[in-house]
């Protein structure tokens, strides 16, 4: 679960305040979709929660652990799927997976790797250097990575971009699965249709403030 209390981020020793006084929670087994216009601070919020930036005020907890003081525990529990694919161009899919998992102290078996590559439909390209992958394939590989890691908290930055129709279905299926297993999912997105399929709660971040709306309101909401 993610619990955020009075979180503020002034970037750069308070030079510029992106958002302030945010409070909300994402429970275990819940998928929360965060909407908002460009530049509202959605991505920045995810990056704070992923412990990339220090918040300038307030605190947040991931699985009951403080996001600043207990960084290491938090990092082991969460996974961020960001815009950058976090893949090494010269390694192939399998090597990339093994490396990413090794950083978390995990060692997947060949069978597990083959399974997730097949499920994400990139098994045929498993021996290809990631350099030759398209953006959509990289995203699929990221899903495969997440499948192996099974994070308790999953943060996703615009998960649907550059995925094809089948890829989006795959993504949603994966989100449903992991939510069923009891993970907390927080995603930022602009795709109302796709996110409405999986999200239980929806928030709109605009001008540094968060307002909650229901999933049904999503189609008619006019902020973005």
């Amino acid at each position, binding site marked *: 679960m993610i619990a955020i209390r009075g979180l503020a981020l002034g970037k750069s020793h308070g030079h510029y305040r992106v958002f302030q006084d945010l409070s909300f929670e994402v429970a275990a087994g819940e998928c929360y979709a965060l909407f908002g216009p460009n530049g509202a601070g959605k991505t920045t919020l995810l990056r704070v929660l992923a412990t990339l930036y220090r918040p300038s005020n307030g605190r947040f907890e991931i699985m009951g652990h403080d996001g600043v003081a207990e960084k290491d525990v938090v990092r*082991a529990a969460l996974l961020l799927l960001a*815009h950058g694919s*976090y*893949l090494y*161009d*010269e390694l192939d899919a399998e090597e990339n997976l093994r490396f990413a998992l*090794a*950083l978390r*102290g995990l060692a997947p078996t060949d069978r597990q790797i083959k399974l997730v590559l097949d499920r994400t439909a990139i098994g045929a390209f498993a021996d290809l250097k990631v350099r030759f992958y398209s953006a959509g394939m990289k995203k699929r590989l990221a899903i495969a990575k997440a499948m192996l890691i099974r994070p308790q908290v999953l943060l996703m930055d615009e998960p649907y971009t550059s995925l094809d129709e089948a890829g989006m279905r795959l993504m949603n299926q994966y989100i449903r699965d992991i939510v069923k297993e009891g993970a907390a999912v927080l995603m930022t997105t602009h795709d109302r249709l796709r996110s409405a399929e999986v999200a239980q709660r929806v928030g709109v971040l605009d001008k540094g403030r968060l307002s909650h709306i229901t999933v049904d309101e999503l189609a008619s909401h006019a902020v973005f």
Partner: protein
Amino acid sequence: MPFFRVIRWVAWKDLVSEIRSRETISSMFFFALIVILVFSFSFSMDQEAARELIAGIIWVAFAFTGIIGLGKSFAAELQNDCLEHLQISPAPKGAVYLGKLAANLLFMLVVEVILFPMFVIFFNLDVVEELPLLLLIFALATLGLSTVGTLFSAMTVHIRAREVMLPILLLPLAVPVMIAAVEATRGALNGLPLSLYGNWLQLLAVFDVVFTVLSFWAFEWIIDS
């Protein structure tokens, strides 16, 4: 031990990437070749002058090639935001540092081992019996350059003018390494007894230990907020 596994995997990742692309080592190698060429033109060398100057030339070439390799080390991590990944992965940062250090050290040593025979050929050096000692000197001094160098590579990767800043920050700090390496290499090449330049090896060892520990500790502040 997860700590050592992380070291191994980081180093392995760099090595495999390098073996497949050959980007770093080939650019280092050709740069060093050019340096040798320029030096042999700019000093008209007879046997006598060569004995005096060659150690300095070797280490100037090695230091600048090393800087090229070090600069590329963390620039490569910028692709696909991999550096961010290293930051937020739960892996101990010190292990990541040691992995990168091992890879950098290996690249530099490989280039040096390829280059050294060229010095021997171009400048008519006589090295057969001192070879193991020379390798030890190379290893110690290269470790000294790459400990701080790896740290500064991570530091300069996020800043403007990073290609300039790496040598500007690294070389003043590496003054002791350069002095010790040049003196020890000169001693070994001229066939002096080890007791005359043994203390330089000690100095190199002290530098290596101090800065490996310091950089290991400081790396966390560089890569993580």
